[in-house]
């Protein structure tokens, strides 16, 4: 098998594919009442952001930044709403909420299926920096707390995505493109529950106690730990398109979520500067873009089944005020 990663954004015929998908003639082939919109990555590459002119402003604060969503430092910080769309996935296996009859009528070239009729959470984003650290808090509705990742269940999760380079454009907002990597920070409710000692799965699937564990198990866990570190609740990736997500060697991001009033509030915290070439860079007075993905475990969200913001959201980082200002 060719182990090279597949890049959906590239390749000859992409323009043609887009055209074919969107022409009225192919549209007529679709089942009446079809609740999907079929798009390919090429449409989005380099598109202008549509989340308002200003986007998200990262305000300066002189105080310390923490992982606590209830930290008073967030009081009065403006929250920016973000619109999400349900991505039914690229190459799903277990099926989607789209009726089978409709799926049959999709063109063969279909690579992404968005469902515009399915409701999504509406995240609100706050951001702060103190010149050294940057904190981003995302608050969104989720009717169920899903902290179990088991053979038959899926966990809640939230990810932020940043382009590594803004020139000539900010890569693809759908997980980047070949040669145009993106940096992804993912917080996971199951990992946080484990760190908190709240492993709910123990009830359904108890773990063996101490005896009889083979060296194989120790080797496995040592070489391929579930979490990047024993206290990790988030993981940092680099990606160049769907299917290319790769865990970074250096894990610099921390995150913490709190659930209350039917909402998750998750704070991501990272140093603004970084030596890691696959880390997004932030500097006071600078600009970048971000994108959001939300997985609702209770709805079987995992992998490409998630709610995402389709276009880059501009992020403006306040400069550090000069003394006396």
């Amino acid at each position, binding site marked *: 098998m060719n182990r090279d990663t597949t890049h959906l954004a590239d390749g000859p015929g992409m323009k043609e594919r887009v055209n074919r998908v969107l022409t009225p003639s192919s549209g007529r082939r679709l089942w009446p009442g079809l609740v999907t919109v079929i798009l390919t990555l090429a449409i989005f590459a380099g598109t202008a952001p549509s989340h308002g002119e200003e986007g998200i402003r990262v305000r300066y604060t002189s105080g310390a930044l923490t992982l606590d969503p209830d930290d008073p430092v967030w009081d009065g910080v403006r929250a920016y709403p973000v619109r999400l769309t349900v991505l039914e996935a*690229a190459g799903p296996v*277990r099926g989607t909420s789209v009726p089978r009859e409709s799926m049959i009528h999709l063109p063969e070239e279909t690579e992404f299926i968005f469902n515009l009729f399915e409701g999504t959470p509406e995240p609100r984003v706050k951001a702060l920096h103190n010149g050294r650290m940057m904190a981003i808090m995302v608050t969104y509705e989720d009717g169920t707390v899903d902290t179990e990742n088991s053979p038959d269940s899926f966990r809640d999760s939230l990810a932020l995505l940043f382009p590594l380079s803004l020139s000539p454009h900010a890569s693809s907002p759908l997980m980047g493109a070949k040669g145009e990597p993106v940096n992804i920070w993912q917080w996971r409710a199951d990992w946080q529950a484990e760190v908190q000692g709240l492993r709910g799965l123990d009830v359904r699937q*108890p773990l063996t106690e101490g005896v009889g564990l083979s060296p*194989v*198990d120790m080797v496995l*866990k040592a070489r391929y730990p579930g979490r990047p570190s024993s206290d990790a609740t988030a993981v940092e990736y680099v990606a160049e398109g769907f299917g290319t997500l790769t865990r970074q060697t250096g894990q610099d991001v921390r995150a913490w979520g709190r659930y209350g009033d039917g909402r998750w509030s998750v704070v991501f915290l990272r140093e603004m500067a970084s030596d890691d070439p696959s880390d997004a860079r932030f500097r006071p007075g600078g600009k970048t873009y971000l994108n959001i993905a939300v997985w609702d475990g209770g709805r079987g969200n*995992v992998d490409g089944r998630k709610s995402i913001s389709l276009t880059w959201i501009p992020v403006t980082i306040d400069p550090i005020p000069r003394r006396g200002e």
Partner: protein
Amino acid sequence: MMKEVYNWQIGRRMKYPYEGKRPKRQFAAVFDTNKCIACQTCSVACKTTWTSGRGQEYMYWNNVETKPYGGYPQAWDFRVLEMLPAGGWKDGVYTGKTIFEKAEEQKKKAEGYLPALEEWSYPNIGEDEIYGTVEQGMHIEGLPHPVWFFYLARICNHCTYPGCLASCPRQAIYKRPEDGVVLIDQARCNGYKECIAGCPYKKPMFNATTGRSEKCVACYPKMEQGIQTQCIEQCIGKIRIQGWISPPEKAEEDNPIDYLVHIRKLALPLYPQFGTEPNVYYIPPIHVPAPFLRQMFGPGVEEAVRTYRESVPDDPVLKGLLVMFGSSPEIISRFRVKADVAYGYNGKGKLVARVPTTEPAVVRKHYDSRLDVYRIDIT
């Protein structure tokens, strides 16, 4: 976009997400269901070797289930069969849809489902439960039996066209070019469980402590030393033999697997209609009615049963090969039968098994006059 590949088990070309490139050689095994007593020695050999860790408690990369009612996970095969439209066989060609062809309708990679945790939790459910009812005073004569069950030992089939590999969105699953073993790259796996849904045999399993999926590795460290897998080597019923299978047009008479599968067509793939070209082959149970066997092993099953019942007793080569099962820890790549003795050779051509077709027997007198005792065991 799906590619066209050739699947000899269904006698035709079919759609598969990747190009059909066969490995240099392909791991294969033959299990004789007629000899299996479900002692689970294979399951335990595998379990203690590979899955005795936390998060692996429920895993049996090797399991033995009683058919028709047993299943690990429960009813895995019937669930998949129900998803495929009823399709028959015509002149050795499958006319229905494979899991890939069925999936293509919905722009998926492989048709499948994700079993619930509870379905994995009773690996020995249905054990020894018969199909049919035993009437008072019932006496069974002849074959097939009106009431029946049989044991089906299962490992990963290391398919030529794996459903798990097709389903993985991260290309974390690969088929080794040197031996055709299908592995999940633990460094790439992100625990999406798509492979579990996409494997019709349900042999990838999710480890909730690592957040990654795992599967049978065909004991590749042993295989690389020329030794058979744990489940095959440790089988006390000697129902199994491991080797290499050639494509049918390159079948070799002195290759044990080729001889059983391609030349004598005595061993058959499990659910060939799924379309993955599985590489564990089964000698079907001769006491089970044909319709059930046809559904499970394809259209060649009646011929295989006939060969086992009628040809084997008078066929020195087949008889020799069948008694050679389990006679060496090493992988037997070549064999020959001469003067009622079967000889097995490893990959380097070294003799590793020598088995007489008929055990030399000495019959002693029932009464020993010297000791003045009667013997119960006289052979």
